[in-house]
Each structure stands twice: as structure tokens, then as C-alpha cells.
């Protein structure tokens, strides 16, 4: 049976119905229609479905939708807009950290939590943060550069 789920996504309130076995990823993609959150691995390894819940990154395929009741979720659509990119979004573009783009939303949200908690990460910190985000195009080197550049900017 479906249950009501009220949550905030990108500062907007949503009331949807979900099955208990539906994941947060399905609630976001199918229930709310925000498809920037991707699905790629179905076993919680790849990180393309990463979103922030109350400021903490989570793989939205590893959490039931109902567990997010009353929570505040940030997806890639809420991170920035074409006219007002988040500095990380701009840096990913500037530093060539985007290829096919399928892992990009997840990587960006992971980077956001990292910088929120640690404005001056080392390269090792960045590598640890990205362990849960796989990218087959191999943008890792450039993504590291991008995050370092934003961290450097904030410092100034």
C-alpha cells in the first residue's frame, strides 16, 4: 500500500505517495519528476544518485523514500541554475570535470558536502570524499582540480 510522504526538495514542499519499498531515488525521479538524480548501479556503489539530506550526502537508492519524511533534500536541480551556477558547477565546467555527464550531479553534491564541512580540503580529503562516486569517463583528475580551485577561491 502507498503511504503519504511529505518532504522538502530544493526548498519546495512536496506531498507524494510512495510504496514502502520505494527508494528515495524513485521518489525524487518518478514521484517528483526531478531526473537530475541518476540511477546507474542498483547496488549503492556508483553514487550517481547522491543527494543531500539535511546537509549530508546520501545515495538516494540506499534509503527508502519514507525515511526522508519531513527532511530537507537538495538535488542537483537545487544546487544552482544556468544563470547562477554554484561555484562548484562553474569549476567543474571550467576544469573539464564533465564528460558524459551521467555521474556529474552526484559528484557535485558530494563535493558540496565536502566543502561545506571542510572549506580547505587537501587532495587526499577530496579523494576520500569521491570514493563513493564512480565515473567511467575518468574525470577524477579534473574533478579534483575543480574542487581545489573552489576551495582556493573561498580562502581568498
Amino acid at each position, binding site marked *: 500500500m502507498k503511504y503519504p510522504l511529505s518532504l522538502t526538495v530544493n526548498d519546495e514542499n512536496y506531498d507524494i505517495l510512495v510504496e*514502502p*519499498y520505494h527508494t528515495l531515488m524513485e521518489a525524487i525521479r518518478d514521484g517528483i519528476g526531478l531526473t537530475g538524480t541518476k540511477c546507474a548501479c*542498483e547496488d549503492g556503489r556508483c553514487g550517481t544518485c547522491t543527494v543531500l539530506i539535511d546537509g549530508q550526502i546520501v545515495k538516494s*537508492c540506499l*534509503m*527508502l523514500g519514507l*525515511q526522508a519524511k519531513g527532511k530537507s533534500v537538495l538535488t542537483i536541480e537545487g544546487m544552482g541554475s544556468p544563470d547562477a551556477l554554484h561555484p562548484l558547477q562553474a569549476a567543474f565546467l571550467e576544469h573539464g570535470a564533465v564528460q558524459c555527464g551521467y555521474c556529474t550531479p552526484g559528484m557535485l553534491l*558530494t563535493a558540496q558536502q565536502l566543502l561545506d564541512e571542510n572549506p580547505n580540503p587537501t587532495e587526499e580529503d577530496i579523494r*576520500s570524499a569521491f570514493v*563513493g562516486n564512480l565515473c567511467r569517463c575518468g574525470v577524477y583528475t579534473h574533478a579534483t582540480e575543480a574542487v581545489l580551485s573552489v576551495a582556493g577561491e573561498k580562502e581568498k
Partner: protein
Amino acid sequence: MIDCQYLEPITVSEACTLLAEHGDGAKVVAGGQSMAILLRNGLIQPSHLISIQHVPGLEDITASDGGVKIGARVTLDRLSGIGETHPTLRALDDVISEVADQQIRNFATLGGAICEAHPASDINVVLSALHATVKLASADGERVVPMCDFVSGAFTTSAQPGELLTEVAVPSFDLTSAAAAHRRFVLRAGDYPVVGVGAFVSLDGSGGCQDARIVVGNCSGAPAHAQEAEARLKGHSIVGNSEVLDEAGELAAAHVAPSSDPMAPSEYKIDLVNVLTKEALAEAVARATG
């Protein structure tokens, strides 16, 4: 399609009542980090999901003379660096920040990680080496079970229907003469290890080994004590004696019979047991004497 109910008890006793009522069809959801996948892929089809998200009192970490108690819903992220405030848990620091990844550690709970009973679980290896116990609540009351009896096989625990893991207790030990360490080998960062080894040693005044516990992960369904290797160390001088640690490694390797899996063939896991046992023991001895 499966018809499943989602229940959200607000006390331990209510949760236990619901678990008892719904029997085998009921599954506990804590962080959801292993449950959601099983559900999504149709691998389990419970009639009731019992979320313990709103049950209070499961998120405390408390220390007393007897040891450290950790609530079942404490996240792995909160445990990272735990050895700094609770030094007897230092061996958890060896591994906790390498378990899975930041996303998972943010929401995965200690209780969930234990109950998943993954054969390669580093956490279960370390807790077994530390002689941890788990507290199981049920409608009938509570019981305390040693980790090594709780995880009974691959993805299997000895919890009875109606029981809820509420707390993990790690007994204290004398930090000036005892210590634990954990070593693992992963093929890729963020993954389960091919093999993990947890070691605990306590020393007498002259560098002899009073007690030794060596626990090997991913070579059998549940974490397993390397009893022959432990026996080789007990009563012998192990400080500054790398030969005996080497022998312990070889004994540990000689007595595991891991099955091959896609990560590695059996022979290679045996090689790793040898290497990692030595390393974990050497580190534990160094800490105990440090």
C-alpha cells in the same frame, strides 16, 4: 506485487511487539543502507517494514568502567575517530573511515552494519576481536550475546524473530598493556575487503602474551577466530619477536579454508591472511607497548 506495510514504532518495546507480531515477515529498517537494495531488487519481500528511525535512546555513546556502549542507530560517520575519545576503540579507527564511502557512512548505522552480517564486514571483525557484545531486546526482555555468537554465518545472525539489536558494548581493557588493530586488503577503495584481520593482544609485564585474539573476515561465513595462531602466541614473548608473529600469520593462513569468490581465488585469500595477520599483530603489539 508485494504488499508491504511500513510501521514506525516510537519505543523499543513497541518495536519488539511489532516484530513479534509479524514474525518472519517483518524486517527492521534502521539506516536502510542494505535493506533498500534488497527491497528494490525484489530479493526480500517483507510483509512489514519496521522503521526504528523514531525510537529514542538508540543514538548514545556512553563510557563507564566496564567499557563503551554504543546505541544501535549510531551512524558509522559518528564513529569515525571514535578512538580519540574512547581509546579502547582505536582499532575501529583503523577501518571505519574506509568502510564503504561517505554517503553510506552518513546514514548506515552500527546496528544495521552488524545485522547485515556480511562475511567481509570489517566492523564485525574488529568488534569480535574486541570481545564486543550486542544487546537484543524482545517482548520477553533483554539478552546479551557475544559478537562471535551473534553473527552466525553469511548474512545470518542468531537473533530470534521479535528481537531487536539495541546496543553494542565493548569491554574495557588496560591500555597500558593491551591493544587491538585491524588490517584489510581491498581491490578498490570503498569496497568490501578481500580479507580483513583484527588482532587483540594483552601483555604481561615482561613482553609475554597474556591473551591474543585474531579474527579473520571473509574466509568463512562469519568472522572466525584463528585459534591455532592465538594459541601459538599465548604465554610466549611477542614483543620484539617478529618470528613468532610470522609463525602466527602462517598458522592463521594454514587453518582457513576460504572459498573463492569473484574478488579472489581461495589461495590468494590465504596469502593475505598470512600477511594481514602479521601486520595486524605487529601493530597491536606496537600499540600495547607504545
